[in-house]
């Protein structure tokens, strides 16, 4: 996705810069015409420059949209695997949004859930002591 969008950007910027330079040169010529003969009928901007500027813009917009790929999640705890969601944005409904948190084993409320007041500290100490004893 990234290479495609970057090549789109490259084409878009080349086209926009080229059309800008062409337009600049065209206006320089028009200025000279006006200076020599103030009553001369000045021509409008050539069609190919216009097409190039519009084309560059369209390439840029498409490149911007191509640069977004579907969301993938990497599990945090437990077995490492990649979960692919069939969407580009995140679902707004909280029950759906927390589904992905459950799938990735992520706990967005960890700072509250693991607050000392909510953790069985005696059990933790005991488990830690056992672990130390087993190591020794």
């Amino acid at each position, binding site marked *: 996705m990234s290479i495609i969008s970057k090549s789109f950007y490259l084409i878009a910027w080349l086209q926009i810069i080229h059309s*800008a330079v062409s337009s600049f040169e065209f206006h320089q010529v028009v200025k000279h015409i006006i200076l020599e003969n103030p009553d001369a009928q000045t021509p409008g901007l050539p069609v190919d420059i216009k097409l190039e500027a*519009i084309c*560059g*813009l369209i390439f*840029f917009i498409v490149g*911007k949209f191509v640069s977004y790929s579907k969301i993938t999640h990497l599990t945090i705890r437990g077995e490492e695997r990649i979960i692919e969601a069939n969407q580009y*944005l995140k679902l707004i409904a909280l029950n759906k949004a927390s589904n992905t948190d459950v799938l990735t084993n992520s706990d967005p409320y960890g700072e509250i859930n693991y607050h000392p007041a909510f953790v069985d500290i005696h059990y933790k100490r005991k488990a830690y002591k056992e672990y130390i004893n087993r190591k020794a």
Partner: protein
Amino acid sequence: MSYRFTGLQSADSGSFNNSKLLQIHDTTMLTAGLSAGILQLQSFAGFGMFFAVYTFVNLLFISWLCQFRPGLYFSDPIHTIWVKNLFRELAGFIMTWTLAFTLVR
């Protein structure tokens, strides 16, 4: 103040989606301003181009990134996609439009 736990929305997802939308709007509308300046559009033509490109980008956003269901991703889709960023993008568009318009001449 109601504390009913129904129809809750994830603030995290909301800000994620909004930042994506804002990024798309910012980049595309600034570039649109550049091309408007290169095309030497004046007054109504320029503003017309702004609204045309804005509509085009929004329709593309709804069909491509939202997969035709913006309600799943935004709590107030029409307002968020069309109105919320309008004046910010208009100011950015006018800036790049004026810049390109002046540099090219």
